[in-house]
Protein backbone atom coordinates (compact mmCIF):
# COMPACT_ATOMS: atom_id res chain seq x y z
CA UNK A 1 0.00 0.00 0.00
CA UNK A 2 1.20 3.48 -0.91
CA UNK A 3 1.25 6.58 1.19
CA UNK A 4 -2.10 8.19 1.98
CA UNK A 5 -2.36 11.60 0.39
CA UNK A 6 -6.03 12.46 0.86
CA UNK A 7 -8.01 11.27 3.82
CA UNK A 8 -11.50 12.59 4.34
CA UNK A 9 -13.54 11.43 7.35
CA UNK A 10 -17.25 11.85 7.78
CA UNK A 11 -17.29 14.98 5.68
CA UNK A 12 -20.68 16.64 5.56
CA UNK A 13 -21.58 19.97 4.10
CA UNK A 14 -24.88 21.72 4.46
CA UNK A 15 -25.44 25.06 2.74
CA UNK A 16 -27.56 27.03 5.17
CA UNK A 17 -27.65 30.36 3.40
CA UNK A 18 -30.36 29.13 1.08
CA UNK A 19 -34.07 29.23 1.94
CA UNK A 20 -34.08 25.48 2.38
CA UNK A 21 -30.77 24.13 3.70
CA UNK A 22 -29.03 21.99 1.09
CA UNK A 23 -27.20 18.88 2.24
CA UNK A 24 -24.53 18.84 -0.45
CA UNK A 25 -22.36 16.15 1.19
CA UNK A 26 -23.34 13.53 3.72
CA UNK A 27 -20.76 11.58 5.70
CA UNK A 28 -18.34 11.17 2.87
CA UNK A 29 -15.29 8.99 3.43
CA UNK A 30 -12.50 9.22 0.94
CA UNK A 31 -9.08 7.68 0.94
CA UNK A 32 -6.67 8.35 -1.89
CA UNK A 33 -3.07 7.24 -2.08
CA UNK A 34 -0.07 8.88 -3.65
CA UNK A 35 0.05 8.41 -7.41
CA UNK A 36 -3.59 7.61 -7.96
CA UNK A 37 -5.53 8.90 -10.95
CA UNK A 38 -9.09 9.28 -9.79
CA UNK A 39 -12.24 10.45 -11.51
CA UNK A 40 -15.07 11.84 -9.41
CA UNK A 41 -18.30 11.36 -11.27
CA UNK A 42 -21.98 11.80 -10.69
CA UNK A 43 -24.90 13.78 -11.95
CA UNK A 44 -24.97 17.53 -11.77
CA UNK A 45 -25.65 18.67 -8.21
CA UNK A 46 -24.36 15.46 -6.67
CA UNK A 47 -21.67 17.31 -4.71
CA UNK A 48 -18.53 16.84 -6.80
CA UNK A 49 -17.47 20.48 -6.68
CA UNK A 50 -18.32 20.72 -3.03
CA UNK A 51 -16.13 17.73 -2.21
CA UNK A 52 -13.21 19.05 -4.26
CA UNK A 53 -13.51 22.40 -2.49
CA UNK A 54 -13.37 20.69 0.91
CA UNK A 55 -10.27 18.74 -0.07
CA UNK A 56 -8.62 21.82 -1.52
CA UNK A 57 -9.36 23.86 1.58
CA UNK A 58 -11.39 26.40 -0.36
CA UNK A 59 -14.38 25.85 1.87
CA UNK A 60 -14.96 24.31 5.29
CA UNK A 61 -17.06 21.22 5.89
CA UNK A 62 -19.98 21.53 8.28
CA UNK A 63 -18.59 18.50 10.06
CA UNK A 64 -15.83 15.99 9.50
CA UNK A 65 -12.13 16.33 8.89
CA UNK A 66 -9.88 16.42 5.86
CA UNK A 67 -6.22 15.41 5.90
CA UNK A 68 -3.97 16.23 3.00
CA UNK A 69 -0.54 14.63 3.17
CA UNK A 70 -1.05 14.10 6.87
CA UNK A 71 -2.03 17.71 7.63
CA UNK A 72 -5.47 18.36 9.02
CA UNK A 73 -6.31 21.24 6.71
CA UNK A 74 -9.72 21.77 8.23
CA UNK A 75 -7.89 23.13 11.27
CA UNK A 76 -5.44 25.47 9.53
CA UNK A 77 -5.86 29.23 9.95
CA UNK A 78 -6.48 31.12 6.73
CA UNK A 79 -2.97 32.31 5.82
CA UNK A 80 -1.44 28.95 6.72
CA UNK A 81 -4.03 27.28 4.55
CA UNK A 82 -3.23 29.57 1.61
CA UNK A 83 0.44 28.73 2.02
CA UNK A 84 -0.40 25.06 2.27
CA UNK A 85 -2.28 25.25 -1.00
CA UNK A 86 0.59 27.11 -2.63
CA UNK A 87 3.05 24.39 -1.66
CA UNK A 88 0.94 21.24 -1.92
CA UNK A 89 -2.16 21.57 -4.05
CA UNK A 90 -2.56 22.45 -7.70
CA UNK A 91 -5.93 23.61 -8.99
CA UNK A 92 -7.49 23.48 -12.42
CA UNK A 93 -10.96 24.92 -12.76
CA UNK A 94 -13.50 24.53 -15.50
CA UNK A 95 -12.54 27.69 -17.38
CA UNK A 96 -10.89 31.11 -17.15
CA UNK A 97 -8.14 29.80 -14.95
CA UNK A 98 -5.49 32.23 -16.12
CA UNK A 99 -4.87 35.91 -15.53
CA UNK A 100 -5.85 37.41 -18.87
CA UNK A 101 -3.21 40.16 -18.92
CA UNK A 102 -0.30 37.81 -18.34
CA UNK A 103 1.41 35.55 -20.88
CA UNK A 104 1.74 31.81 -20.37
CA UNK A 105 5.24 32.39 -19.07
CA UNK A 106 3.99 34.98 -16.57
CA UNK A 107 0.95 33.01 -15.50
CA UNK A 108 3.08 30.00 -14.65
CA UNK A 109 5.91 32.15 -13.29
CA UNK A 110 3.46 33.90 -10.96
CA UNK A 111 3.07 30.81 -8.78
CA UNK A 112 6.83 30.37 -8.71
CA UNK A 113 7.24 33.98 -7.70
CA UNK A 114 4.77 33.51 -4.88
CA UNK A 115 7.05 30.66 -3.84
CA UNK A 116 10.00 33.04 -4.09
CA UNK A 117 11.82 30.98 -6.68
CA UNK A 118 14.75 32.86 -8.22
CA UNK A 119 14.35 34.36 -11.68
CA UNK A 120 16.82 31.97 -13.25
CA UNK A 121 15.18 28.88 -11.85
CA UNK A 122 11.81 30.26 -12.77
CA UNK A 123 12.71 30.63 -16.43
CA UNK A 124 14.01 27.09 -16.53
CA UNK A 125 11.00 25.65 -14.81
CA UNK A 126 8.46 27.53 -16.93
CA UNK A 127 10.04 26.15 -20.08
CA UNK A 128 10.12 22.67 -18.64
CA UNK A 129 6.45 22.86 -17.68
CA UNK A 130 5.32 24.20 -21.03
CA UNK A 131 7.23 21.37 -22.67
CA UNK A 132 5.33 18.91 -20.47
CA UNK A 133 2.02 20.23 -21.76
CA UNK A 134 3.42 20.58 -25.27
CA UNK A 135 2.95 24.36 -25.54
CA UNK A 136 6.48 25.71 -25.69
CA UNK A 137 5.65 27.83 -28.72
CA UNK A 138 2.88 29.62 -26.79
CA UNK A 139 5.19 30.84 -24.05
CA UNK A 140 4.59 34.51 -24.85
CA UNK A 141 0.91 34.26 -25.74
CA UNK A 142 -1.81 35.66 -23.54
CA UNK A 143 -4.79 33.44 -22.65
CA UNK A 144 -6.96 35.32 -25.14
CA UNK A 145 -4.69 34.13 -27.94
CA UNK A 146 -5.01 30.47 -26.91
CA UNK A 147 -7.75 27.95 -27.63
CA UNK A 148 -9.78 26.60 -24.73
CA UNK A 149 -7.79 23.39 -24.73
CA UNK A 150 -4.50 25.25 -24.77
CA UNK A 151 -5.64 27.45 -21.90
CA UNK A 152 -6.49 24.36 -19.85
CA UNK A 153 -3.06 22.92 -20.61
CA UNK A 154 -1.38 26.11 -19.44
CA UNK A 155 -3.57 25.89 -16.35
CA UNK A 156 -2.32 22.35 -15.76
CA UNK A 157 1.25 23.56 -16.21
CA UNK A 158 0.61 26.30 -13.67
CA UNK A 159 -0.92 23.81 -11.26
CA UNK A 160 2.24 21.74 -11.62
CA UNK A 161 4.57 24.67 -11.14
CA UNK A 162 4.80 24.50 -7.40
CA UNK A 163 5.51 20.76 -7.53
CA UNK A 164 2.32 19.94 -5.61
CA UNK A 165 1.47 16.55 -4.20
CA UNK A 166 -1.98 16.61 -5.73
CA UNK A 167 -3.82 18.33 -8.50
CA UNK A 168 -7.52 18.90 -8.06
CA UNK A 169 -9.42 19.58 -11.27
CA UNK A 170 -13.10 20.47 -11.28
CA UNK A 171 -14.54 19.49 -14.65
CA UNK A 172 -11.39 20.54 -16.51
CA UNK A 173 -12.73 19.32 -19.83
CA UNK A 174 -16.30 20.56 -19.56
CA UNK A 175 -15.74 23.42 -22.00
CA UNK A 176 -13.54 21.52 -24.44
CA UNK A 177 -14.29 19.66 -27.63
CA UNK A 178 -13.68 15.93 -27.42
CA UNK A 179 -10.29 16.06 -29.14
CA UNK A 180 -8.93 18.72 -26.78
CA UNK A 181 -10.52 16.90 -23.87
CA UNK A 182 -8.80 13.64 -24.61
CA UNK A 183 -5.54 15.47 -25.31
CA UNK A 184 -5.73 17.15 -21.91
CA UNK A 185 -6.50 13.82 -20.24
CA UNK A 186 -3.56 12.18 -21.98
CA UNK A 187 -1.26 14.88 -20.69
CA UNK A 188 -2.67 14.50 -17.17
CA UNK A 189 -2.25 10.72 -17.38
CA UNK A 190 1.32 11.11 -18.59
CA UNK A 191 2.16 13.48 -15.72
CA UNK A 192 0.55 11.09 -13.31
CA UNK A 193 2.63 8.25 -14.60
CA UNK A 194 5.94 10.04 -15.05
CA UNK A 195 5.88 12.51 -12.19
CA UNK A 196 3.83 10.43 -9.75
CA UNK A 197 1.46 13.32 -9.23
CA UNK A 198 -1.88 12.40 -7.75
CA UNK A 199 -4.86 13.60 -9.77
CA UNK A 200 -8.41 13.93 -8.55
CA UNK A 201 -10.76 15.30 -11.18
CA UNK A 202 -14.48 15.58 -11.50
CA UNK A 203 -16.22 14.99 -14.79
CA UNK A 204 -19.35 13.68 -16.33
CA UNK A 205 -17.81 13.03 -19.71
CA UNK A 206 -17.92 9.29 -20.40
CA UNK A 207 -14.74 9.30 -22.54
CA UNK A 208 -12.86 11.07 -19.78
CA UNK A 209 -14.13 8.62 -17.20
CA UNK A 210 -12.70 5.79 -19.24
CA UNK A 211 -9.19 7.19 -18.86
CA UNK A 212 -9.28 7.01 -15.07
CA UNK A 213 -7.96 4.10 -13.06
CA UNK A 214 -10.35 4.62 -10.23
CA UNK A 215 -13.85 6.02 -10.47
CA UNK A 216 -15.74 7.33 -7.46
CA UNK A 217 -19.40 8.02 -8.04
CA UNK A 218 -21.33 10.49 -5.95
CA UNK A 219 -25.09 10.52 -5.77
CA UNK A 220 -26.97 13.02 -3.63
CA UNK A 221 -23.86 13.87 -1.65
CA UNK A 222 -23.00 10.30 -0.84
CA UNK A 223 -20.40 7.95 -2.25
CA UNK A 224 -22.45 5.55 -4.34
CA UNK A 225 -19.65 3.43 -5.76
CA UNK A 226 -15.86 3.33 -5.77
CA UNK A 227 -14.32 1.05 -8.39
CA UNK A 228 -10.91 0.43 -9.86
CA UNK A 229 -10.81 -0.06 -13.60
CA UNK A 230 -8.36 -0.56 -16.37
CA UNK A 231 -8.00 2.72 -18.23
CA UNK A 232 -8.31 2.74 -21.99
Amino acid at each position, binding site marked *: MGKTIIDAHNVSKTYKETAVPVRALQDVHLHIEEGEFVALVGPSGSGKSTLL*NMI*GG*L*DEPTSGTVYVDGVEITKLP*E*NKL*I*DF*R*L*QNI*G*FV*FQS*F*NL*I*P*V*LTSRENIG*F*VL*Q*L*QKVSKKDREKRVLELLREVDLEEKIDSRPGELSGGQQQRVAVA*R*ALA*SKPKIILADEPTANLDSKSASNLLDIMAKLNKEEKITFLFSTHDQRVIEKARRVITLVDGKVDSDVNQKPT
Partner: protein
Amino acid sequence: MFLKLAWLNIWRNGRRTMITVASVFFAVLLAITFRSVTDGVYENMIHNVVSYSSGYLQIHKKGYWDEQSIDNSFEADEELSKNLLDNPKVTGLMPRLETFALSSFADKTKGVMVLGIDPTSEKKVNQLNEKVVEGIYFESNSAEQILIGSGLAEQLNAKVNDTLVLIGQGYHASSAAGKFNIVGILKLGSPELNSNVIYMPLKTSQYLHGAENRLTSLSIMLGKTSDLESSKEAIESVIDTEAYEVMTWKQMMPEMDQFIEADSSGHYIVIGILYIIISFGLFGTLLMMTFERNREFGILIAIGMKKHLLAYVILLESIMISLMGCLMGVLGGTLIVHLLTEYPVQFSGSLREVYEDYGFEPIIYFSGNIRIFIYQTLIVLVLASLLSLYPGFKVLRLRPVDAINS
Protein backbone atom coordinates in the same frame (compact mmCIF):
# COMPACT_ATOMS: atom_id res chain seq x y z
CA MET B 1 5.89 41.51 -10.24
CA PHE B 2 2.97 43.13 -8.42
CA LEU B 3 3.85 46.48 -9.95
CA LYS B 4 3.75 44.96 -13.39
CA LEU B 5 0.52 43.12 -12.69
CA ALA B 6 -1.12 46.30 -11.37
CA TRP B 7 0.09 48.23 -14.39
CA LEU B 8 -1.30 45.65 -16.82
CA ASN B 9 -4.54 45.48 -14.88
CA ILE B 10 -5.29 49.17 -15.13
CA TRP B 11 -5.09 48.94 -18.92
CA ARG B 12 -7.62 46.15 -19.16
CA ASN B 13 -10.19 48.79 -19.71
CA GLY B 14 -8.04 51.54 -21.13
CA ARG B 15 -10.89 53.89 -21.86
CA ARG B 16 -12.20 53.80 -18.33
CA THR B 17 -8.72 54.29 -16.94
CA MET B 18 -8.07 57.22 -19.27
CA ILE B 19 -11.32 58.88 -18.22
CA THR B 20 -10.38 58.48 -14.58
CA VAL B 21 -6.85 59.72 -15.21
CA ALA B 22 -8.28 62.70 -17.09
CA SER B 23 -10.61 63.57 -14.23
CA VAL B 24 -7.73 63.51 -11.76
CA PHE B 25 -5.68 65.55 -14.21
CA PHE B 26 -8.30 68.28 -14.52
CA ALA B 27 -8.94 68.39 -10.80
CA VAL B 28 -5.25 68.75 -10.00
CA LEU B 29 -4.78 71.29 -12.77
CA LEU B 30 -7.70 73.36 -11.51
CA ALA B 31 -6.64 73.05 -7.91
CA ILE B 32 -3.08 74.11 -8.67
CA THR B 33 -4.08 77.04 -10.84
CA PHE B 34 -6.66 78.14 -8.30
CA ARG B 35 -4.27 77.87 -5.36
CA SER B 36 -1.59 79.60 -7.35
CA VAL B 37 -3.84 82.57 -8.12
CA THR B 38 -5.24 82.93 -4.63
CA ASP B 39 -1.86 82.53 -2.99
CA GLY B 40 -0.34 84.84 -5.57
CA VAL B 41 -2.92 87.51 -4.85
CA TYR B 42 -2.39 87.19 -1.11
CA GLU B 43 1.38 87.21 -1.41
CA ASN B 44 1.20 90.30 -3.56
CA MET B 45 -1.18 91.98 -1.15
CA ILE B 46 0.98 91.14 1.82
CA HIS B 47 4.05 92.35 0.01
CA ASN B 48 2.43 95.63 -0.89
CA VAL B 49 1.02 96.26 2.54
CA VAL B 50 4.10 95.32 4.54
CA SER B 51 6.51 97.21 2.34
CA TYR B 52 4.76 100.47 3.30
CA SER B 53 4.04 99.52 6.84
CA SER B 54 5.71 97.05 9.09
CA GLY B 55 7.97 95.14 6.74
CA TYR B 56 7.74 91.34 6.94
CA LEU B 57 9.59 91.40 10.22
CA GLN B 58 10.52 94.11 12.64
CA ILE B 59 13.14 94.37 15.27
CA HIS B 60 12.34 96.56 18.24
CA LYS B 61 13.76 97.18 21.61
CA LYS B 62 12.22 94.56 23.83
CA GLY B 63 8.90 95.88 25.13
CA TYR B 64 8.40 98.51 22.41
CA TRP B 65 5.35 96.82 20.92
CA ASP B 66 3.47 96.96 24.19
CA GLU B 67 4.48 100.53 24.88
CA GLN B 68 5.15 102.35 21.64
CA SER B 69 7.10 105.31 22.85
CA ILE B 70 10.28 106.90 21.67
CA ASP B 71 11.71 106.08 25.07
CA ASN B 72 11.62 102.45 23.95
CA SER B 73 13.88 103.13 21.01
CA PHE B 74 17.24 101.49 20.46
CA GLU B 75 20.64 102.49 19.21
CA ALA B 76 21.15 101.78 15.49
CA ASP B 77 23.82 99.13 15.10
CA GLU B 78 25.83 98.79 11.88
CA GLU B 79 27.01 95.34 12.89
CA LEU B 80 23.43 94.13 13.33
CA SER B 81 22.37 95.47 9.93
CA LYS B 82 25.28 93.77 8.27
CA ASN B 83 24.46 90.48 9.98
CA LEU B 84 20.87 90.68 8.86
CA LEU B 85 21.75 91.42 5.26
CA ASP B 86 24.04 88.40 5.25
CA ASN B 87 20.92 86.24 5.39
CA PRO B 88 20.09 85.46 1.75
CA LYS B 89 16.35 85.53 2.46
CA VAL B 90 16.57 89.15 3.57
CA THR B 91 16.26 91.56 0.66
CA GLY B 92 16.21 94.90 2.40
CA LEU B 93 16.20 96.83 5.67
CA MET B 94 14.24 99.91 6.60
CA PRO B 95 15.39 101.70 9.73
CA ARG B 96 12.67 103.93 11.14
CA LEU B 97 11.92 106.27 13.95
CA GLU B 98 8.21 106.38 14.45
CA THR B 99 6.64 109.03 16.69
CA PHE B 100 3.46 111.02 17.14
CA ALA B 101 3.13 114.75 16.95
CA LEU B 102 0.70 117.59 16.55
CA SER B 103 0.92 119.24 13.17
CA SER B 104 -0.45 122.65 12.50
CA PHE B 105 -0.74 124.84 9.51
CA ALA B 106 -2.44 128.21 9.61
CA ASP B 107 -5.49 127.67 11.85
CA LYS B 108 -5.66 123.87 11.36
CA THR B 109 -4.19 121.34 13.78
CA LYS B 110 -4.05 117.56 13.56
CA GLY B 111 -2.42 114.67 15.33
CA VAL B 112 -0.13 112.79 12.97
CA MET B 113 2.27 109.92 12.78
CA VAL B 114 5.79 111.05 12.01
CA LEU B 115 7.84 108.44 10.17
CA GLY B 116 11.54 109.10 10.18
CA ILE B 117 12.86 107.05 7.30
CA ASP B 118 16.01 106.46 5.34
CA PRO B 119 15.10 107.92 1.91
CA THR B 120 17.44 105.59 0.05
CA SER B 121 16.24 102.33 1.64
CA GLU B 122 12.56 103.19 1.26
CA LYS B 123 13.09 104.15 -2.35
CA LYS B 124 14.72 100.80 -2.91
CA VAL B 125 12.21 98.71 -0.99
CA ASN B 126 8.86 100.27 -1.74
CA GLN B 127 9.54 102.99 -4.30
CA LEU B 128 8.15 105.61 -1.96
CA ASN B 129 9.51 108.21 -4.37
CA GLU B 130 6.99 107.06 -6.96
CA LYS B 131 4.12 107.88 -4.64
CA VAL B 132 4.96 111.54 -4.81
CA VAL B 133 2.16 113.11 -6.82
CA GLU B 134 3.20 116.70 -6.35
CA GLY B 135 6.59 118.19 -5.59
CA ILE B 136 9.74 116.16 -5.11
CA TYR B 137 11.16 113.30 -3.03
CA PHE B 138 13.71 113.87 -0.22
CA GLU B 139 17.03 115.22 -1.38
CA SER B 140 19.08 113.79 1.47
CA ASN B 141 18.89 111.93 4.75
CA SER B 142 19.34 115.10 6.75
CA ALA B 143 17.32 117.60 4.74
CA GLU B 144 14.85 119.72 6.73
CA GLN B 145 12.07 118.44 4.53
CA ILE B 146 8.84 116.54 4.91
CA LEU B 147 6.45 114.62 2.68
CA ILE B 148 2.81 114.43 3.67
CA GLY B 149 -0.08 112.23 2.65
CA SER B 150 -2.53 113.82 0.23
CA GLY B 151 -5.40 113.23 2.66
CA LEU B 152 -3.58 115.09 5.37
CA ALA B 153 -2.70 117.89 2.93
CA GLU B 154 -6.37 118.30 2.17
CA GLN B 155 -7.38 118.36 5.80
CA LEU B 156 -4.73 120.93 6.67
CA ASN B 157 -5.29 122.78 3.46
CA ALA B 158 -1.53 122.73 2.90
CA LYS B 159 0.37 122.69 -0.38
CA VAL B 160 3.87 122.01 -1.59
CA ASN B 161 6.34 124.61 -0.28
CA ASP B 162 4.13 125.46 2.70
CA THR B 163 5.74 125.22 6.11
CA LEU B 164 4.26 122.99 8.78
CA VAL B 165 4.80 123.22 12.52
CA LEU B 166 5.31 119.98 14.39
CA ILE B 167 5.14 119.68 18.16
CA GLY B 168 5.83 116.42 19.88
CA GLN B 169 7.75 114.73 22.60
CA GLY B 170 11.37 113.79 22.17
CA TYR B 171 13.61 111.17 23.71
CA HIS B 172 13.60 111.13 27.54
CA ALA B 173 10.89 113.74 27.82
CA SER B 174 12.78 116.39 25.89
CA SER B 175 10.55 118.55 23.77
CA ALA B 176 10.53 118.22 20.02
CA ALA B 177 9.32 121.11 17.97
CA GLY B 178 10.21 122.50 14.62
CA LYS B 179 9.15 124.01 11.35
CA PHE B 180 9.42 121.96 8.19
CA ASN B 181 9.06 122.63 4.55
CA ILE B 182 6.62 120.41 2.65
CA VAL B 183 8.54 119.33 -0.44
CA GLY B 184 6.05 116.82 -1.74
CA ILE B 185 2.62 115.28 -1.41
CA LEU B 186 2.24 111.49 -1.39
CA LYS B 187 -0.70 109.44 -2.53
CA LEU B 188 -0.61 106.28 -0.47
CA GLY B 189 -2.67 103.14 -1.03
CA SER B 190 -3.99 102.90 2.48
CA PRO B 191 -6.48 105.74 3.20
CA GLU B 192 -5.63 105.44 6.88
CA LEU B 193 -1.97 106.17 6.21
CA ASN B 194 -2.76 108.74 3.55
CA SER B 195 -4.52 111.09 5.93
CA ASN B 196 -2.32 110.63 8.96
CA VAL B 197 1.28 110.31 7.95
CA ILE B 198 4.22 112.62 7.65
CA TYR B 199 7.50 111.30 6.29
CA MET B 200 10.76 112.88 7.35
CA PRO B 201 14.38 111.93 6.64
CA LEU B 202 15.68 109.74 9.45
CA LYS B 203 18.57 111.99 10.52
CA THR B 204 16.27 115.00 10.62
CA SER B 205 13.78 113.15 12.75
CA GLN B 206 16.46 111.84 15.11
CA TYR B 207 17.76 115.39 15.55
CA LEU B 208 14.25 116.76 16.09
CA HIS B 209 13.56 114.19 18.81
CA GLY B 210 16.92 114.43 20.48
CA ALA B 211 17.37 110.78 19.66
CA GLU B 212 20.67 110.74 17.82
CA ASN B 213 21.25 107.47 16.01
CA ARG B 214 18.18 105.86 17.61
CA LEU B 215 15.43 103.81 15.95
CA THR B 216 12.06 102.59 17.11
CA SER B 217 12.08 99.80 14.57
CA LEU B 218 14.18 98.10 11.97
CA SER B 219 11.90 96.67 9.30
CA ILE B 220 13.08 93.67 7.35
CA MET B 221 11.98 92.77 3.85
CA LEU B 222 12.05 89.21 2.58
CA GLY B 223 12.19 87.81 -0.92
CA LYS B 224 9.43 85.30 -0.26
CA THR B 225 6.30 85.60 1.85
CA SER B 226 6.63 82.01 2.89
CA ASP B 227 10.04 82.51 4.49
CA LEU B 228 8.47 84.39 7.38
CA GLU B 229 8.77 82.00 10.30
CA SER B 230 12.09 80.50 9.29
CA SER B 231 13.59 83.96 8.87
CA LYS B 232 12.25 85.02 12.23
CA GLU B 233 14.00 82.09 13.85
CA ALA B 234 17.18 82.75 11.92
CA ILE B 235 17.21 86.36 13.06
CA GLU B 236 16.42 85.50 16.65
CA SER B 237 19.41 83.22 16.65
CA VAL B 238 21.82 86.01 15.74
CA ILE B 239 20.54 88.81 17.95
CA ASP B 240 20.30 89.29 21.65
CA THR B 241 16.68 88.39 22.39
CA GLU B 242 17.02 89.83 25.89
CA ALA B 243 17.49 93.30 24.39
CA TYR B 244 15.44 93.04 21.22
CA GLU B 245 12.11 91.61 20.12
CA VAL B 246 11.51 90.22 16.63
CA MET B 247 7.94 90.35 15.38
CA THR B 248 6.30 89.14 12.19
CA TRP B 249 3.73 91.11 10.26
CA LYS B 250 1.19 88.53 11.39
CA GLN B 251 1.85 89.50 14.99
CA MET B 252 1.81 93.20 14.23
CA MET B 253 -1.20 93.12 11.91
CA PRO B 254 -3.33 90.24 13.16
CA GLU B 255 -6.41 91.62 11.37
CA MET B 256 -4.83 91.15 7.97
CA ASP B 257 -3.68 87.65 8.84
CA GLN B 258 -7.17 86.77 10.06
CA PHE B 259 -8.73 88.22 6.96
CA ILE B 260 -6.53 86.08 4.75
CA GLU B 261 -7.18 82.98 6.83
CA ALA B 262 -10.93 83.53 6.69
CA ASP B 263 -10.82 84.26 3.00
CA SER B 264 -8.79 81.17 2.19
CA SER B 265 -11.08 78.84 4.13
CA GLY B 266 -13.57 79.48 1.33
CA HIS B 267 -10.96 78.35 -1.13
CA TYR B 268 -10.39 75.14 0.76
CA ILE B 269 -14.07 74.37 0.38
CA VAL B 270 -13.90 74.88 -3.38
CA ILE B 271 -10.89 72.59 -3.66
CA GLY B 272 -12.50 70.13 -1.27
CA ILE B 273 -15.55 69.88 -3.52
CA LEU B 274 -13.29 69.37 -6.51
CA TYR B 275 -11.59 66.46 -4.81
CA ILE B 276 -14.82 64.95 -3.61
CA ILE B 277 -16.00 64.86 -7.22
CA ILE B 278 -12.90 63.07 -8.47
CA SER B 279 -13.01 60.75 -5.48
CA PHE B 280 -16.37 59.48 -6.62
CA GLY B 281 -15.00 58.86 -10.09
CA LEU B 282 -11.91 57.09 -8.85
CA PHE B 283 -13.89 55.08 -6.34
CA GLY B 284 -16.34 53.96 -9.01
CA THR B 285 -13.52 52.85 -11.25
CA LEU B 286 -11.84 50.97 -8.41
CA LEU B 287 -15.07 49.22 -7.50
CA MET B 288 -15.66 48.16 -11.08
CA MET B 289 -12.06 47.08 -11.49
CA THR B 290 -12.23 44.87 -8.45
CA PHE B 291 -15.72 43.46 -8.67
CA GLU B 292 -15.40 42.42 -12.28
CA ARG B 293 -12.31 40.45 -11.30
CA ASN B 294 -13.93 38.69 -8.38
CA ARG B 295 -13.59 35.23 -9.89
CA GLU B 296 -9.99 35.87 -10.83
CA PHE B 297 -9.26 36.88 -7.24
CA GLY B 298 -10.86 33.65 -6.07
CA ILE B 299 -8.60 31.64 -8.35
CA LEU B 300 -5.52 33.55 -7.25
CA ILE B 301 -6.34 32.88 -3.61
CA ALA B 302 -6.96 29.22 -4.46
CA ILE B 303 -3.55 28.83 -6.10
CA GLY B 304 -1.84 30.36 -3.11
CA MET B 305 -1.84 34.16 -3.26
CA LYS B 306 -2.40 35.75 0.11
CA LYS B 307 -5.28 38.18 0.32
CA HIS B 308 -3.22 41.08 1.59
CA LEU B 309 -1.09 40.82 -1.54
CA LEU B 310 -4.23 41.14 -3.62
CA ALA B 311 -5.27 44.18 -1.61
CA TYR B 312 -1.79 45.56 -2.20
CA VAL B 313 -2.19 45.13 -5.96
CA ILE B 314 -5.47 47.05 -5.79
CA LEU B 315 -3.76 49.82 -3.81
CA LEU B 316 -1.05 49.98 -6.47
CA GLU B 317 -3.65 50.19 -9.20
CA SER B 318 -5.40 53.04 -7.43
CA ILE B 319 -2.15 54.90 -6.86
CA MET B 320 -1.00 54.37 -10.44
CA ILE B 321 -4.19 55.74 -11.92
CA SER B 322 -4.28 58.76 -9.67
CA LEU B 323 -0.57 59.42 -9.81
CA MET B 324 -0.66 59.50 -13.60
CA GLY B 325 -3.42 62.09 -13.54
CA CYS B 326 -1.72 63.95 -10.75
CA LEU B 327 1.68 64.16 -12.43
CA MET B 328 0.07 65.32 -15.65
CA GLY B 329 -1.87 67.88 -13.63
CA VAL B 330 1.26 69.12 -11.88
CA LEU B 331 3.04 69.38 -15.21
CA GLY B 332 0.14 71.24 -16.80
CA GLY B 333 -0.23 73.42 -13.71
CA THR B 334 3.47 74.29 -13.77
CA LEU B 335 3.15 75.25 -17.39
CA ILE B 336 0.11 77.46 -16.80
CA VAL B 337 1.60 79.15 -13.75
CA HIS B 338 4.86 79.68 -15.57
CA LEU B 339 3.16 81.15 -18.64
CA LEU B 340 0.96 83.46 -16.59
CA THR B 341 3.93 84.64 -14.58
CA GLU B 342 5.84 85.41 -17.76
CA TYR B 343 2.85 86.99 -19.47
CA PRO B 344 0.75 88.35 -16.62
CA VAL B 345 -2.95 88.94 -16.95
CA GLN B 346 -3.73 92.65 -16.55
CA PHE B 347 -6.96 93.87 -15.07
CA SER B 348 -8.90 96.39 -17.00
CA GLY B 349 -11.77 98.78 -16.38
CA SER B 350 -13.00 99.67 -12.94
CA LEU B 351 -11.18 96.82 -11.21
CA ARG B 352 -7.97 98.26 -12.55
CA GLU B 353 -8.80 101.65 -11.02
CA VAL B 354 -9.62 100.14 -7.65
CA TYR B 355 -6.29 98.34 -7.67
CA GLU B 356 -4.37 101.39 -8.70
CA ASP B 357 -6.12 103.50 -6.07
CA TYR B 358 -4.82 101.19 -3.43
CA GLY B 359 -1.39 101.42 -4.91
CA PHE B 360 -1.38 97.89 -6.25
CA GLU B 361 -0.30 96.87 -9.69
CA PRO B 362 -3.34 95.79 -11.72
CA ILE B 363 -1.90 92.36 -12.40
CA ILE B 364 -3.03 88.89 -11.39
CA TYR B 365 -0.11 87.41 -9.56
CA PHE B 366 0.55 83.70 -9.54
CA SER B 367 2.40 82.02 -6.78
CA GLY B 368 4.99 79.52 -7.92
CA ASN B 369 5.36 78.21 -4.41
CA ILE B 370 6.50 74.61 -4.70
CA ARG B 371 4.40 73.70 -1.67
CA ILE B 372 1.22 74.10 -3.70
CA PHE B 373 2.40 71.36 -6.05
CA ILE B 374 3.61 69.06 -3.33
CA TYR B 375 0.39 69.44 -1.34
CA GLN B 376 -1.82 68.62 -4.30
CA THR B 377 0.23 65.51 -5.06
CA LEU B 378 0.08 64.39 -1.45
CA ILE B 379 -3.65 64.99 -1.25
CA VAL B 380 -4.23 62.87 -4.35
CA LEU B 381 -2.00 60.08 -3.05
CA VAL B 382 -3.77 60.02 0.29
CA LEU B 383 -7.13 60.00 -1.46
CA ALA B 384 -6.05 57.15 -3.74
CA SER B 385 -4.90 55.12 -0.75
CA LEU B 386 -8.03 55.81 1.27
CA LEU B 387 -10.30 54.98 -1.64
CA SER B 388 -8.60 51.65 -2.19
CA LEU B 389 -9.28 50.72 1.43
CA TYR B 390 -12.82 49.62 0.73
CA PRO B 391 -12.10 47.33 -2.24
CA GLY B 392 -9.05 46.10 -0.35
CA PHE B 393 -11.20 45.31 2.64
CA LYS B 394 -13.67 43.49 0.39
CA VAL B 395 -10.85 41.36 -0.94
CA LEU B 396 -9.69 40.49 2.56
CA ARG B 397 -13.17 39.16 3.28
CA LEU B 398 -13.47 37.28 0.00
CA ARG B 399 -14.23 33.58 0.25
CA PRO B 400 -12.51 31.86 -2.66
CA VAL B 401 -15.36 29.39 -3.30
CA ASP B 402 -17.92 32.15 -3.59
CA ALA B 403 -15.64 34.18 -5.82
CA ILE B 404 -14.88 31.26 -8.12
CA ASN B 405 -18.54 30.40 -8.45
CA SER B 406 -19.52 33.99 -9.15
